[in-house]
């Protein structure tokens, strides 16, 4: 077969896409079959050949049929698991990774502009990586010979997977905003400690009392981290079990109670910072008491709201 007829080219295109073990067998049979079909046509041989090959269709498709190979990247069996995993990753892991990346920038004392840059950049690159790797992984599973076994390994759907409540956009946005707020507070507290952003008489000062770092700031930070994590969990699951509200109350208490105490005992601001800002003026006691009460009130309202939402 040195000739390079349309049939030769067609058979070659099919043959190189089927498993090597059957390649010659399929090629010989296909060539004979095409020749038989062309011969049976009344038309002039060249035109008949073209007609027959057109009817046989795209060699890629025909080869896939011979090889019994799916023409879809991710078939209907794996598709539900694929979308579910992607949605979970993009709505939980991606925000978490972004928050951490931004948090590190806050620690480094970057300005607001580069913080936004980091956030956008992280969402784009990490999000693209997540989509790419999950897709590649599922495509490989789809093509692997042990597809049936892999399929048995992915958890079968049960009615328990049905979402308890219809998707509530308002609540989702609220949960995300709350997570962002708590992460931002956490970042700001750490940032003002490490970056010492306030300049007074050639010295760099923290805003909050540095003594807090040997005591009361830790439950505040732990509470904030817990609140941010629980917000994300709230967004991811969309369910509102009582246990989640209880955890939320615990995190809220860890954050609010020490903070109120710190305010009430005038341990909030760095004394040097305060003296420089206030000049000769002394902050009245009522300010601290009021601030402590407001913090407590917000914490209590928030906790109550979560218990009301849960069922």
């Amino acid at each position, binding site marked *: 077969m040195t000739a390079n007829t349309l049939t030769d080219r067609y058979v070659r295109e099919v043959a190189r896409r089927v498993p090597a073990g*059957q390649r010659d067998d399929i090629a010989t049979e296909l060539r004979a079959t095409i020749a038989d079909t062309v011969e049976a046509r009344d038309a002039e041989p060249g035109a008949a050949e073209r007609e027959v090959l057109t009817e046989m269709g795209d060699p890629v498709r025909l080869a896939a049929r011979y090889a019994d190979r799916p023409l879809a990247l991710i078939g209907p069996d794996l598709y539900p698991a694929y979308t579910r995993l992607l949605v979970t990753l993009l709505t939980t892991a991606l925000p978490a990774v972004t928050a951490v990346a931004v948090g590190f920038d806050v620690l480094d004392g970057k300005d607001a502009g580069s913080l936004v840059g980091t956030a956008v950049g992280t969402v784009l690159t990490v999000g693209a990586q997540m989509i790419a790797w999950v897709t590649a992984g599922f495509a490989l599973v789809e093509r692997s010979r042990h597809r049936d076994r892999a399929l048995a390994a992915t958890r079968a759907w049960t009615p328990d997977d049905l979402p308890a409540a219809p998707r509530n956009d308002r609540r989702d946005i609220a949960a995300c905003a709350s997570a962002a707020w708590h992460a931002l507070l956490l970042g700001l507290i750490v940032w003002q400690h490490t970056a010492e952003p306030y300049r007074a008489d050639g010295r760099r000062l923290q805003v909050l009392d540095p003594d807090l770092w040997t005591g009361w700031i830790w439950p505040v930070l732990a509470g904030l981290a817990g609140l941010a994590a629980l917000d994300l969990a709230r967004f991811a699951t969309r369910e509102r079990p009582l246990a989640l509200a209880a955890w939320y109350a615990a995190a809220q208490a860890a954050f609010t109670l020490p903070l109120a105490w710190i305010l009430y005992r005038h341990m909030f601001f760095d004394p040097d910072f305060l003296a420089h800002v206030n000049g000769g003026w002394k902050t009245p006691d009522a300010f601290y008491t009021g601030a402590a009460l407001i913090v407590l009130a917000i914490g209590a309202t928030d906790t109550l709201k979560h218990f009301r939402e849960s069922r």
Partner: protein
Amino acid sequence: MTPDELIHGQAQELRRGTVVLACLALLEEPQYGYALLETLTGAGVAVDGNTLYPLLRRLEKQGLLTSEWNTDESRPRKFYRVSPLGSRVRAGLVREWRDLTASLARLTKDDA
């Protein structure tokens, strides 16, 4: 979509599984690909070559058909015939087919 197009599409779905049964019925006598296609078409079972030829190989892989190369003529041809397993499967499919046609005949007797 016009009613004709809809009928055509649904009819293709209906025919899809019947090609296997027709092949298992016809290949009591060994036959090669193109001849089988002609016989099927003549018998009123329309099927495209690009569906039939890969299907024959799949049935062979499943053990329902056996094959043999015939090189006596100038053009080497692969002849397929039903295996003992293929005969048993055919008998089962014929039963299924009879049940199905009987059920559908009862359901659609008013449309006749």
